[in-house]
């Protein structure tokens, strides 16, 4: 997974292997540097501390109503944060479609349709970019979950949409 974050108005890009749980020490890339991450303490609700290169940091993540991070306190020091982009948002959902093969894609949070790249009737391959949905200043690339033909597109460019609204359908 690639994450693009803004912290104090600076951009950072992180690469974390999909299956990573950080329950054992794991290397990740951050702006091309490598660091080791390991979960420290956690409870059902949240991670309370985390090791970076064997140094333990106390963390508290601030989230908006949709559950997206807007800031982080690290050892009491606050950094405003902004999640800009995730390259594969629905890792598990994608896997799931292997068996389910559903072509229906819905919005997961309210937001705005920034750009639609394809139109009804177009042929798509699994993984092709169909449209970009912006929510909480984060751009989500919505890709085709299966190969096929676009049956319908439920939104327009610039449209403000609600959660769980039909974005497009492929058969």
């Amino acid at each position: 997974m690639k994450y693009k974050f803004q912290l104090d108005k600076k951009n950072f890009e992180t690469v974390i292997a999909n299956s990573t749980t950080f329950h054992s020490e794991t290397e990740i890339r951050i702006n091309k540097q490598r660091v080791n991450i390991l979960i420290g303490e956690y409870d059902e609700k949240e991670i309370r501390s985390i090791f970076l290169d064997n140094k333990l940091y106390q963390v508290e993540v601030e989230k908006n109503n949709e559950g997206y991070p807007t800031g982080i306190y690290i050892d009491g020091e606050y950094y405003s944060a902004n999640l800009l982009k995730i390259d594969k948002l629905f890792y598990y959902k994608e896997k799931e479609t292997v068996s389910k093969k559903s072509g229906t894609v819905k919005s997961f949070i309210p937001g705005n349709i920034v750009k639609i790249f394809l139109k009804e009737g177009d042929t798509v391959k699994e993984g092709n970019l169909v449209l970009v949905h912006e929510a909480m200043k984060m751009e989500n690339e919505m890709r085709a979950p299966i190969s096929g033909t676009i049956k319908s597109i439920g939104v327009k460019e610039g449209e403000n949409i609600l959660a769980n609204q039909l974005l497009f359908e492929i058969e």
Partner: protein
Amino acid sequence: MINKSDKNKVLIPNRGVIALDIIDSLKSIGLETILLYSPEDANSLAVKLACRSYKFLSSKLEDSYLDREMIIEKALELNVDYIHPGYGFLAEDPEFFRLCEEKNIEVIGPGSKVLSIVEDKIELRKIAEDLGIRVLKYSKVIKSHLDYEKIPESFHYPLILKPLKGQGGKRIRVVENKARGEERASKMLQREDTKRMGIFAEEFYPDSHHIEIPFIRDINGNILFLPEIESSVQRRFQKIFQESPSINISDNLRESLYEDSRKLIEEINFVGLGYTEFIVNNGASYFSEINPSYQINTLIPEIHMIANFLKKQFAISNGELLHHVKGIRILKPKYTILLVSLMAENPFDEFRPSSGIVTEFFSYSTIRNMFKTSLYTGAKVSPLYDPYIGKIATFAERRENSIKDMNNFLKNIIIKGIRTNLNFLRHVLNSNCLFSGDTTIDFLNQKCKFNERKRTEEEHQVAAALLSSIFHIDNRKKNYKEQLEKMKQPGFFKRLFKKF
């Protein structure tokens, strides 16, 4: 079943660290400490440690910690021998002391007579002037916005506008010019209680130092002076960082501060524990006021003496004499002591007070530092009260080591669930300006602005790495849960195995 007619009962109508210090000190000399607490404070550490505790019916200040009649009624009902008001609340209220004296309840403090002299800041300065003590230039009382004209033209702006009576810096305002002053004054006078007593103006020197002299005077007039405390570093007139001794006054000046203090407290026959306050500007001192009660910074005299200040206060209040003090004794400091105030407020959100339940709390003290706090894991920080939640002191022979130790110790404290000013304090402690001793009244406004601190590239990278890792795990967990839900739906496995 427990109805002993113990003659050593003390009632404590206060809260937080203040109540804790009183309970702990007076319990250790065998007194039965009886706490009055508001419903909001029901789970406080003070309730846990007091010998007995009685709940006020309301958490509103005027119906609890500030309710003179209710407190006195309870004192009579419980047949207590003493009331220790702590500081703040009713600790400097002459009326409360007068009512207690009427009912023959002994209140720890200098008595209603001294308190009413000390309360009126203008009258007190007149007394000082008559004794030849230089005072801060002050205006006449201002009771309506028309009175603002009474401020002499010779006064230089900026000026400070202050209520005539009453403690605490919350209602003090600095004004830059006459127009702002008139506006602010009429605003201040909109408060009914402020209007009744009036306000006054004094000159404000941003480049000056705020110096306090703690003292204890016994009934025979013997005085013990403790090393002076510099408490210039203030945020909105709340003392954030204090040190003792001050490195900003000469020995000559120090001596004159003690001499001024002596004259003044002898003149008003102050018996008990208090602090004289001075503004020091360009090497000259100006008497400002007297704090007639034990204060937030009591740990400083305690460390200088390596003794419990409150036990001494109690003894003096009971007519005991100072030990080893005949006449005047000025204690020489062996250490540089630093003290910071821990506040439940968010420095990253304009210092807004923070309240809630403390979910994690730990610290580790060593021989050269001291941490007193009402916090514990599970403690409730109430939005109803002052955000002051603790004090931290370090001491060492050399000032730079005190600073280093404080810096180090602040990193040994972890508090979660509420926001605190810990990182702000670290910022203050790390400033070059503080290290070099340039601690003037405008320190936090001009010299050490929190919002202008820099972060390193490394700090940002650490933050980014941590945040993305946490987000990754959260997201994974969320997706995993959704997956599990899907698997529970009828037909999931059928669809899965259709493939094979």
